[in-house]
């Protein structure tokens, strides 16, 4: 049944009346996601292509039965939108918004400690897709195909690249999760790896990291101890200069920490099949699965 997202999930889109919010709400619905509501404060009672709009997430949950949210709210207001969804009891919150201040995310993290059942994915991420069932996010659905490889990544288009390689080799995906490129986020590699490790529909996992932080090392340490499934890894940014943010707010080598070399080393030590080239991800999964 893949992880966290299925065709039963009932989605509310926060910021549905904005251009991006509307475009991707309809994109999700076209893919098969049950988009049951939208929220824009002050626009309750309107509808977007047949999707009812409410003033609050609380109403969307009560009246439309929403249990997941996709956040398209602009950066200055996005943290508030995430907290509102959590407080309303929405269990899965996917924050697409790019550019949320770090301090706001620290407050969100503190707020979410009171809601242990809530899973936040992102922000600054492409979202989550369970191919053939549903997607919450901005990824192109048609490059995916249902199957048994899990994908988790901090990147957007680099994930599409990996998925495209898999699909080209006839290897479908169970669920693909983009955890986002910000330094402070909701769901990390470790959370996703733990879910994939116990998911009966996932046989192997691609883990795509990048420079900055130590989330890859943390996940690698856990994989070494507790994950029997083959894991294929790649770290983007081995050529990135230290001290510079490479597009993503979290992609920075600072104080000699968070280098691609150190992450690759930790992953190799954990038995992960590390690819030097991003062009080798799909083929490496195929080999890892054949060699089991």
């Amino acid at each position, binding site marked *: 049944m893949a992880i966290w997202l299925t065709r039963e999930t009932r989605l509310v889109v926060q910021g549905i009346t904005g251009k991006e919010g509307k475009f991707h709400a309809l994109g999700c619905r076209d893919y098969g996601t049950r988009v049951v509501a939208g929220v824009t404060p002050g626009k309750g009672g309107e509808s977007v292509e047949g999707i009812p709009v409410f003033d609050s997430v609380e109403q969307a949950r009560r009246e439309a039965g929403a249990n997941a949210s996709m956040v398209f709210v602009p950066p*200055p207001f996005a943290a508030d939108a995430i907290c509102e969804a959590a407080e309303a009891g929405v269990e899965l919150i996917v924050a697409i918004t790019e550019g949320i*201040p770090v*301090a706001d995310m620290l407050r969100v993290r503190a707020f979410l400690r009171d809601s242990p059942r809530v899973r936040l994915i992102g922000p600054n991420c492409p979202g989550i897709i369970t191919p053939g069932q549903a997607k919450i996010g901005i990824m192109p659905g*048609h490059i995916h195909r249902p199957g048994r490889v899990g994908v988790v990544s901090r990147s957007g*288009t680099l994930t599409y690249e990996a998925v495209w390689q898999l699909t080209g080799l006839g290897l479908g995906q169970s669920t693909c999760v983009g955890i986002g490129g910000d330094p402070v986020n909701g769901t990390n590699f470790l959370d996703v790896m733990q879910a994939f490790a116990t998911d009966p529909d996932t046989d192997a996992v691609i883990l795509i990291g990048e420079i900055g932080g130590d989330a890859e090392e943390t996940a690698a340490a856990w994989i070494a101890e507790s994950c029997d499934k083959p894991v294929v890894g790649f770290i983007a940014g081995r*050529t990135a200069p230290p001290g510079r*943010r490479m*597009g993503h707010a979290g992609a920075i080598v600072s104080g000699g920490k968070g280098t691609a070399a150190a992450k690759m080393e930790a992953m190799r030590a954990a038995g992960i099949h590390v690819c030097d080239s991003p*062009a*080798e991800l799909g083929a490496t999964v195929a080999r890892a699965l054949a060699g089991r």
Partner: protein
Amino acid sequence: MKIHEYQAKEILRRYGVATPRGRVTDDAGAARAICEELGGRCVVKAQIHAGGRGKGGGVQLAKSPAEAAEHAGRILGMQLVTHQTGAEGQRVRKILIEEAADIAEELYVAVTLDRAAGKPVVIASAAGGMDIEEVAAEDPQAIHREPFDPLLGLLPFQARRIARRLGLSGDTANRAGKLVTALATAYVETDASLAEINPLMITAGGDVVALDAKMSFDDNALFRHKDIVGMRDLAEENPLEVEASKHSLNYIKLDGEIGCMVNGAGLAMATMDIIQLSGSSPANFLDVGGSATQEAVTNAFKILVSDAAVKAVLINIFGGIARTDRIAGGVVAALRELGGAKVPVVVRLEGTNVEEGRRILRESEFDFLVAETMADAATQVVAAVKRGG
């Protein structure tokens, strides 16, 4: 966003952090008078964004106003080379002239983000005045880390603990605790990503003074800090990066020979990496945005080819929601607008409607090298550079 030392001190003084008396100037002729004002002994400090200024000769002690004028004349206008500037160095346009200090002890304090804990953290060490990264590598025990709750701020007992760990006692410990609390408050209230005092000086009289200061800020939070945005010094940034930022393009100049244009930050880094694996080096990082519009491609191309080091260009676009044929049309239109390219251009398109996209490239009037995979693209662009060279 980074600011200068004198600006960081200006901000920290508002929060009650003591700093040496001093003034900033871009006029060497003013140095003598400022030094006299400060009592005849002073330190002349180059103001550039990079660290390591002292080792590069950008910080000089003057024992007289005449000597201050001499140092100022030499430092202003120099190309200051430090381990953070690269070999070409950074031109010094401003100097900070401060009273010479009577140093008893040099300590280190900073506030930054603990990503794993999701909290700000105070980092403190009695080994001040040195490169803290080296201290961390050689003697991790010499560094105290004190994470604090962003909602509560640094609590008084935490400030006292930090002062203790710095080896301080009595009034000096109280003063240091106040200073660290002020630093933490400044960090939180200004949306800083780093607020660092190195060295933090203890004077012979037991006063606690920020001898140096460095602050940088979360770009995503600048919308609520107009005063800090006003401190941006474009002269400190690479001109091509400044130009790119005007077009909302994410561009970072590197020292290689292959210009890269990619959609998405992760794929852009991966493209740089595969260029290196293929035996060459990237001239830049450039993310044109996930949807890679014609306008973004045109602006990006102008910036790439205005870099004299670029011997070939690699365009790597994964068209997802944005269709590949539209992107190909955008690339062709961009080149028409620019009157063609003077260097070989390898284009790798993948994703939605890719056959149509590649056909548009092949049938255009330009000699694109059309690649099918990322590996193929990297091989082709490296070969093109080798042929040209």
